C-alpha cells in the first residue's frame, strides 16, 4: 500500500530567523539603504513588523545577546538614516511611523496584561517569551520624540516663508485691497510678483502634501493631529507677531482678509477630519486680533466689547494693535489716546504676561498613545524587493 506521508505544512509562526553574521545586511537593506517608495502598496510600517519578527525569534531562542545587538543596530541605523535625510519630510515621517509601530509591537506583545486587552488569541501566542524589553521601549520612545522634532522642524521650514504673504499680504478676497489704508506702502520683499509672495492655496497645498504622506505611511492618527496642532500654532504666532510689528497691515481690510484666510484653514481641517486636533484653537489669538481690527473703536461700549472679546490677547497686544491701527481713509477717525486709556483702565486687573510677541519656537509636548495593530504576524510576508531572502520564516 502506498503510504503517503502528508508532510504537515509547518505553520508559519510569525517569526524570522537570521544568522548573526547577516545582521548588518538586514539593517542595511531594511533600514539605512531602504527607499520608502520600494514599499508603496505593501502593509504600512512593514519594516517595523519585520524587525519585531526578528526580535521575537531571538527572544524565542532565548538569545539575549542577539536581541541586544539587533535593537542597538536598529536604533543606530534609524538615527543614521535620519541624519542623512535631515531635510527630507517623507523619509523622516516614514521612520517616525516605523519607530512608533515597533514601540507599539514591543508593548502589544510584551506579555503585559495592560497592553493585551485588544489582542486576539492568536496575537497572544505571538508574545515575547523570555525577555522584558521595557528599557528598550523607553529608548524607542525617546528616539520617536527626536524624530518627531525633526519632522516638525522640516515642516515649519517649508511653511515659514509662505505665512506672512499668504495670511497678511495676499489678496485672498479680490478687490478688498481697493480699501487699503491711506499711506499704505508697497513692501518690496513680498510684493514682487512671483517672488516671495505666496497665496493661501500655497499653504493649503503644502498641508495636503504633509497629510497625504503621513497617512500613506501609516503614521498614528494621534500623532498626525499633534503635527497639525503644532503647525497651526506656528502660523498663528508668525502672523500675529507681524501684525504687532507692522503698521501697514493693521487695518480693517487686513482684518477682513485674515478672517477669510482663517476660515479657509478651519475648513481645510474639517475636510481632512483634523478639527479635533486643537489646531483651530491655537489660532484663537489671531482670530481675536482679526476681529479687533474690524470692531468699532470709539465709545465706552466699544471698549467693553473689545475687552470682553479679546480674552486670548494680552493688554499689551491689544494696546499695540490699537496704536498701530491705520484708518481706511480720511472718513474714518484714528483711534484716540483716550480710547486706549479706557481700554487700559478696563484691563488693568488682568495680570497679563509682559512679553508682546509670541514664541514661534514653542513646541507642545508630544504624546505617543499606545496604538495596537490588528495585524497578526503570520499574515505578514516579505516582498522580494527588500532583498531579505536570508531571513527564514519560522
Amino acid at each position, binding site marked *: 500500500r502506498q503510504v503517503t506521508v502528508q508532510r504537515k505544512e509547518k505553520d508559519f509562526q510569525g517569526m524570522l530567523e537570521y544568522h548573526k553574521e547577516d545582521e548588518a545586511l538586514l539593517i542595511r537593506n531594511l533600514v539605512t539603504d531602504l527607499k520608502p517608495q520600494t514599499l508603496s502598496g505593501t502593509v504600512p510600517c512593514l519594516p517595523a513588523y519585520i524587525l519585531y519578527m526578528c526580535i521575537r525569534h531571538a527572544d524565542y531562542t532565548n538569545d539575549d545577546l542577539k536581541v541586544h545587538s539587533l535593537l542597538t543596530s536598529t536604533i*543606530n541605523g534609524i538615527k543614521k538614516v535620519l541624519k542623512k535625510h535631515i531635510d527630507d519630510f517623507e523619509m523622516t515621517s516614514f521612520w517616525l511611523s516605523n519607530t512608533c509601530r515597533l514601540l507599539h509591537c514591543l508593548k502589544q506583545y510584551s506579555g503585559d496584561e495592560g497592553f493585551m486587552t485588544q489582542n486576539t488569541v492568536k496575537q497572544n501566542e505571538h508574545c515575547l517569551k*523570555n525577555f522584558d524589553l521595557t528599557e*528598550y521601549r523607553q529608548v524607542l520612545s525617546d528616539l520617536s520624540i527626536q524624530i518627531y522634532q525633526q519632522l516638525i522642524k522640516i515642516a515649519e521650514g517649508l511653511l515659514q516663508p509662505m505665512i506672512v504673504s499668504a495670511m497678511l499680504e495676499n489678496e485672498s478676497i479680490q478687490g478688498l485691497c481697493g480699501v487699503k489704508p491711506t499711506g499704505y506702502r508697497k513692501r518690496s520683499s513680498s510684493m514682487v510678483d512671483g517672488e516671495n509672495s505666496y497665496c493661501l492655496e500655497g499653504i493649503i497645498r503644502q498641508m495636503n502634501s504633509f497629510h497625504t504622506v503621513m497617512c500613506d505611511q501609516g503614521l498614528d492618527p494621534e500623532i498626525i493631529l499633534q503635527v497639525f496642532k503644532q503647525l497651526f500654532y506656528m502660523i498663528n504666532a508668525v502672523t500675529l507677531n507681524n501684525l504687532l510689528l507692522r503698521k501697514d497691515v493693521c487695518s480693517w481690510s487686513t482684518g477682513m482678509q485674515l478672517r477669510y484666510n482663517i476660515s479657509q484653514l478651519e475648513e481645510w481641517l474639517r475636510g481632512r477630519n483634523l478639527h479635533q486636533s486643537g489646531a483651530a484653537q491655537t489660532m484663537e489669538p489671531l482670530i481675536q486680533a482679526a476681529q479687533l481690527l474690524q470692531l468699532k473703536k470709539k465709545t465706552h461700549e466699544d471698549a467693553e466689547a473689545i475687552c470682553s472679546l479679546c480674552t486670548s490677547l494680552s493688554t499689551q497686544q491689544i494696546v499695540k494693535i490699537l496704536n498701530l491701527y491705520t484708518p481706511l481713509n480720511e472718513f474714518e477717525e484714528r483711534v484716540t489716546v483716550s480710547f486706549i486709556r479706557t481700554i487700559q483702565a478696563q484691563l488693568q486687573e488682568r495680570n497679563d504676561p509682559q512679553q508682546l510677541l509670541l514664541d514661534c519656537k514653542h513646541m507642545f509636548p508630544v504624546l505617543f498613545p499606545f496604538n495596537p495593530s490588528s495585524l497578526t504576524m503570520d499574515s505578514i510576508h516579505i516582498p522580494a524587493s527588500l532583498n531579505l531572502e536570508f531571513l527564514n520564516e519560522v
Partner: protein
Amino acid sequence: SSQRPRPRVLLKAPTLAEMEEMNTSEEEESP
C-alpha cells in the same frame, strides 16, 4: 496546576545618549 509562565528577564538597555557615545567612539576607533 497550570504552569505559570516564567517571569521574563529584563534586558538592560543603554540610553540614546549612551548609544551615541558608543557610536562616536566606534567611529573614532575605525580608521
